[in-house]
């Protein structure tokens, strides 16, 4: 379980540009939940993910995973339990390393990077099997550098790599936003399958309202650092795109757009 309690976050604190992102923000995510987060730009979606991952510091409040306080844990240490896929497909892979080398790196996540061989030859079949799961034919291109793959292929690999070792949370940061509609669809389906099969607790930020409605067991809409919609279970299942869209328009009018 992930618990954010009384989070305070200001940007440019102490200057004329001071902006309050979160004020007394609290949220609980229980194990096995798949939370879709929507909201307009600047509503605090990505800030929320960055706070969970430790990419940006907090002004006040605490974060706990399964009761352990991780507020002061550096980002790289938190990543042992967290897998993250970024909007930019280039962020999740090493372009100048081969597919096999990338898979080996991901396989060693959280372990000691010592002087043993980087690629364990006995694991190659396992990597092939994992790659064939993507259905993109990457299992036959193990020695190809990831840099020559398309954005969609790289994002699929990034998803696979971030979920290869046992993790407690999967963080998806608009991970389909940079892809063409058809590729985005494929990646989204893949995401659904990975999350189901590995029973991952997932937080997905998206601008695609349809994905937010179709996927996930809980839907959250952020606005000015607060959750203005938060529905789970049957309520979530009953929600329609139109409902969210109406709420979106409401906010926009308030903001004078």
């Amino acid at each position, binding site marked *: 379980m992930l618990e954010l309690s009384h989070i305070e976050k200001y940007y440019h604190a102490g200057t004329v540009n001071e902006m309050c992102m979160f004020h007394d923000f609290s949220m609980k995510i229980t194990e096995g939940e798949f939370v879709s987060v929507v909201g307009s730009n600047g509503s605090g979606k990505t800030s929320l993910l960055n706070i969970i991952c430790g990419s940006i510091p907090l002004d006040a409040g605490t974060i706990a995973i399964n009761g352990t306080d991780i507020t002061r844990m550096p980002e790289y240490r938190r*990543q042992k339990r967290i*897998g993250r896929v970024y909007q930019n497909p280039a962020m999740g892979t090493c*372009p100048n390393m081969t597919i096999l080398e990338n898979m080996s790196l991901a396989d060693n996540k*959280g372990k000691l*990077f010592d*002087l043993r061989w980087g690629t364990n030859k006995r694991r190659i079949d396992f990597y092939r099997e994992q790659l064939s799961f993507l259905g993109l034919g990457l299992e036959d291109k193990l020695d190809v550098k990831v840099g020559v793959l398309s954005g969609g292929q790289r994002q699929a690999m990034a998803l696979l790599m971030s979920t290869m070792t046992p993790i407690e949370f999967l963080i998806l940061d608009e991970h389909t936003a940079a892809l063409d509609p058809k590729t985005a669809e494929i990646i989204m389906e893949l995401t659904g399958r990975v999350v189901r099969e590995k029973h991952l607790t997932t937080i997905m930020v998206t601008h695609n309202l349809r994905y937010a409605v179709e996927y996930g067991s809980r839907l959250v809409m952020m606005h000015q650092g607060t959750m203005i919609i938060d529905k789970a279970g049957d309520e979530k299942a009953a929600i329609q795109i139109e409902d969210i869209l109406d709420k979106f328009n409401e906010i926009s009018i308030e903001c004078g757009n």
Partner: protein
Amino acid sequence: MSIIIGVLEEGLIYAVLALGVYITYKILDFPDLSVDGTFPMGAAVTAMLITKNVYPAATLFIAFFAGAFAGSLTGFIHVKLKVRDLLSGIIMMTALYSINLRIAGKANVAIYNKETIFDNAFLDRMIPPAVKPYMTVILLLVITIICKVILDLYLKTRSGYLLRAAGDNEVLVTSLAKNKGMVKIVGLAIANGFVALAGCIYCQQKGFFEISTGTGAIVIGLANVIIGTKVFRRGIPMKATTSVILGSIVYRTCVAVAIAMGMAASDLKLVTAALFLFILVISSYKGRKVSAHA
């Protein structure tokens, strides 16, 4: 013939330096100016040890570790004290100038009359006189190849993978639950170890330590790496480390040609700089053509 041997000798010494610069410049993408301090540091350490009659082969290892220590300090300044990469190198380079003088005791130390890895009683006994003129170049070739093979092997280990990942995509290193700062420090340590090792070999081959040998070491290293990786690898497929060694020899040939055409020895740094500029312009021109096609 003696000119060719001379070019090969210098080329191979600077090839070891270039292997170090390859790690920082190409793999880590870190412009490491501390090389200008760690190269003479290797020489200073060697001159000091050899005047104290330390076994010459042992100085190779001691110089490597001295350089690695200095390199890790550059990394510490950059990572922990959050100083920009270029400035961390400049700070280290400047500090090392004085430290090198302290180590060596003075700005010039001659070790002509001492035993070195190239000139000792053991070699005198074992090597027939006919091979003698080529002994230095053969030894240098062996040392350079050993360095290259060790680096190639290291880059295939888990630690080596992580080093490559750190230069390629820092975010991924964090995603792998590893501290990217530590990876950089390790990379800088290994790189400067190689650089100081080159300084050690340089000192033993020339028979003296001279404080100004470091000036422009980074430029020579970068030129070697860029010639190697930009020019050679386009034609024939080969390991980057191999191309860096070849690049180093080509670069020395160019310098030798310039000198043969009537430049004075005191013009050497000017030649070095001009050639480096020329190579940069040529290689970026090629790069632009490629990206225009893409």
